[in-house]
């Protein structure tokens, strides 16, 4: 494959960003929007060409049937030493090709959708410029040939996420949310950077291929070194995972994602549901062979994922803002992927169950991107129609918005894991992998899956059934065509994506592998999902006092869930009460009084002194003469005394 197409995939979004960012103010909204769509559409076509060529062209498959990891180009950028070289390049392998498809699809649909959703907004061109910047950064991230390139683009997606969350920069909450997202992920990225440096210090390379193909040999030097009881490799991997935790909103660094919903809804669909937040999963998947070497690191990945999944599912059951529900659902689903990656290792440096977890994780990442983007875009359509984020302002909408309702229902069914929708297949693989790892993990994840079904259908019924509030003159209606097309398309994809023989495309060792559905696990998970849906239907299908009763029966639990287990308050307490008061205040006092005080007193002394000697410069020539004469006489007097 030549380098033209891959280069263009990166260059077009970057060019669109520059074009719209610099010349955007001179364009009309319509022109800017269509230009953005055109650019993204071209990228979409190119990315599909590249990815499908990779998957289906025999040139990329070895004799053994293994798919070859291909470096399309790799340009040296900074060379520190012989081995530590930072390059910028384009790595084509099953997961990066998969991500190319996911990113460009969702990004294009969001571009299209935004034509309708953002119509007439102030800063429309800026919005499209940022979308292009994000697409560029995310594409650069997934095709990174080395961990440092990934870090660079990792920061770029963080920056564009920050810009897009704070898009409504006149709104105080949006600004606060963007700052929160930036600071939390920044904090996590510090761990990431340290991890990178530790890893590269011992392995003498940044390159993914070198790190992952002969991991055992490359990382041999890390075996002896330990730090605080854990081997250096564990530390490096855990620190790198910290970066992934920040980006993918794992506990305890999840607090930024729900607030990030302050951004425009299409942005939430693109960045905070489908693409950027799975970067953490992608990172672990990319480093998977290295993670295999360390049992404790994969253990941590699995445990963090499992806890987060459960936590987020519980919180999602009590939220009022529909976007927050979807945000917590996203956290929960990403945690599913993390668990899946974590359980793919059997703890002895090898995969268990043919690396099923890895494949399942990637599969879920793919299907989740589709149906979660669908749900978010559907939520955007609802918000567009009702002008509120809270389900209390909605209800009985199925009469007014049939298309939105059906597509939303498909999304809910997909995420709940009902066959034949896509979520069923991917989630089932994850559950199989979890059961294979440990039955407890399997049961745990099944419970989370049931909760997922419950809160999604709670949301569905509260929006489309329940009791109809007074809509006044503005009865809600289905969105315009540019918003409708992405909804319908994504719904269609969610219906059929499960039937893709995913194991043939993406596996941990890139060897094709046939997916088997375990009938017991499949039946049990479908059964609990249907039970949960029925429960949700029973509670929320029509207006009734049951939810209120439930809430009053368990006030403490409800309170904790509703307040997200007081994580934000905990962070506020730690930052404001302990760090600000305990550390920053004294430092500020020291700065203000000791350091500034010293400088101020210098200034004050100079000032006083100048006031004292200023009258000498009176402008009175007689005074000057007097001073001059006195000085001359002093000199003369000294001379006289010395010589005579």
């Amino acid at each position, binding site marked *: 494959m030549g380098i033209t197409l891959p280069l263009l995939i990166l260059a077009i979004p970057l060019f669109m960003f520059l074009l719209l960012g610099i010349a955007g103010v001179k364009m009309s909204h319509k022109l800017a929007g269509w230009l953005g769509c055109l650019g993204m559409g071209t990228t979409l076509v190119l990315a599909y060409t590249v990815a499908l060529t990779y998957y289906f062209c025999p040139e990329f498959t070895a004799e053994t049937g293994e798919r070859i990891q291909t470096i399309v180009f790799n340009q040296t950028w900074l060379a520190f030493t012989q081995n530590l070289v930072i390059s910028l390049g384009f790595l084509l392998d099953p997961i990066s090709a998969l991500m190319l498809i996911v990113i460009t699809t969702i990004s294009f649909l969001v571009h299209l959708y935004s034509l309708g959703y953002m119509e007439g907004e102030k800063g429309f061109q800026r919005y499209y410029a940022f979308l292009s910047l994000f697409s560029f950064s995310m594409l650069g991230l997934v095709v990174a040939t080395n961990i440092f390139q990934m870090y660079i683009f990792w920061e770029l997606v963080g920056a564009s996420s920050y810009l897009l969350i704070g898009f409504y920069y006149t709104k105080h909450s949006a600004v606060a949310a963007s700052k929160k997202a930036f600071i939390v992920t920044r904090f996590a990225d510090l761990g990431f950077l340290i991890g990178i440096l530790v890893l590269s210090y011992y392995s003498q390379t940044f390159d993914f291929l070198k790190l992952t193909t002969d991991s055992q040999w490359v990382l041999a030097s890390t075996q002896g070194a330990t730090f605080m009881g854990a081997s250096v490799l564990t530390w490096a991997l855990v620190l790198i995972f910290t970066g992934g935790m920040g980006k993918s909103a794992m506990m305890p660094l999840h607090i930024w994602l729900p607030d990030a919903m302050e951004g425009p809804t299409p942005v939430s669909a693109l960045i905070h549901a489908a693409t950027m937040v799975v970067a953490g999963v992608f990172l672990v998947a990319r480093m998977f062979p290295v993670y295999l070497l360390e049992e404790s690191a994969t253990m941590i990945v699995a445990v963090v994922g499992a806890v987060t999944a459960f936590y987020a599912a519980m919180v999602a059951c009590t939220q009022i803002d529909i976007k927050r529900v979807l945000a917590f659902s996203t956290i929960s689903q990403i945690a599913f992927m993390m668990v899946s990656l974590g359980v793919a290792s059997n703890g002895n440096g090898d995969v268990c169950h043919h690396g099923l977890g890895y494949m399942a994780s990637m599969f879920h990442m793919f299907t989740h991107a589709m149906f979660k983007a669908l749900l978010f875009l559907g939520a955007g359509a609802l918000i567009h129609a009702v002008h509120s984020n809270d389900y209390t302002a909605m209800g009985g909408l199925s009469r007014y918005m049939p298309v939105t309702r059906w597509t939303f229902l498909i999304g809910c069914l997909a995420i709940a894991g009902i066959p034949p929708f896509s979520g069923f297949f991917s989630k089932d693989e994850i559950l199989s992998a979890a059961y294979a790892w440990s039955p407890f993990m399997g049961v745990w994840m099944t419970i989370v899956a049931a909760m997922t079904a419950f809160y999604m259908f709670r949301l569905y019924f509260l929006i489309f059934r329940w009791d109809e509030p007074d809509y006044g003159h503005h009865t809600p209606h289905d969105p315009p065509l540019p918003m409708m097309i992405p909804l319908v398309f994504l719904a269609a994809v969610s219906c059929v994506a499960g039937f893709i023989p995913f194991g043939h495309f993406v596996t941990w060792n890139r060897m094709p592998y046939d997916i088997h559905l375990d009938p017991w696990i499949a039946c049990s998970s479908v059964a609990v999902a249907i039970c949960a849906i029925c429960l949700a239907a029973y509670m929320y299908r029509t207006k009734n006092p049951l939810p209120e009763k439930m809430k009053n029966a368990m006030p403490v639990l409800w309170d904790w869930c509703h307040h997200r287990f007081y994580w934000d308050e905990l962070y506020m307490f730690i930052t404001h009460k302990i760090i600000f008061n305990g550390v920053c205040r004294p430092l500020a006092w020291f700065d203000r009084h000791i350091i500034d005080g010293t400088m101020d007193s210098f200034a004050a002394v100079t000032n006083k002194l100048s006031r004292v000697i200023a009258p000498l410069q009176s*402008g009175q020539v*007689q005074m000057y*003469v*007097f001073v001059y004469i006195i000085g001359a006489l002093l000199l003369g007097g000294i001379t006289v005394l010395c010589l005579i």
Partner: protein
Amino acid sequence: MELKAIYFLIPSLIMFCCGLFGFITRRNMIAMLISLELMLNAVDMNFVIFNRFLFPGQLEGMFFTLFAIAIAAAETALAIAIIINVFRASHNIDVRTLNEMKF
């Protein structure tokens, strides 16, 4: 009794000190100029005295005085022109109140 150089130098010194006193104390600009002339005159006198007593038969001191007188005349003329101009502008030649140009 012989008239030594010192006998001429002392009056000239006193004249110079008077000029100095006047220059520092007087407020009227013309009075200051008068004091200045006194000082200049004392200096001229010193040149002539030193020339006469230390280098008799030479002309340097005398010519210096000659030119100094010419320059003093020029300087006085210009200074008075300025003073008159100042007076025309502010009706006042008190040196301490003439501070409008400073700011």
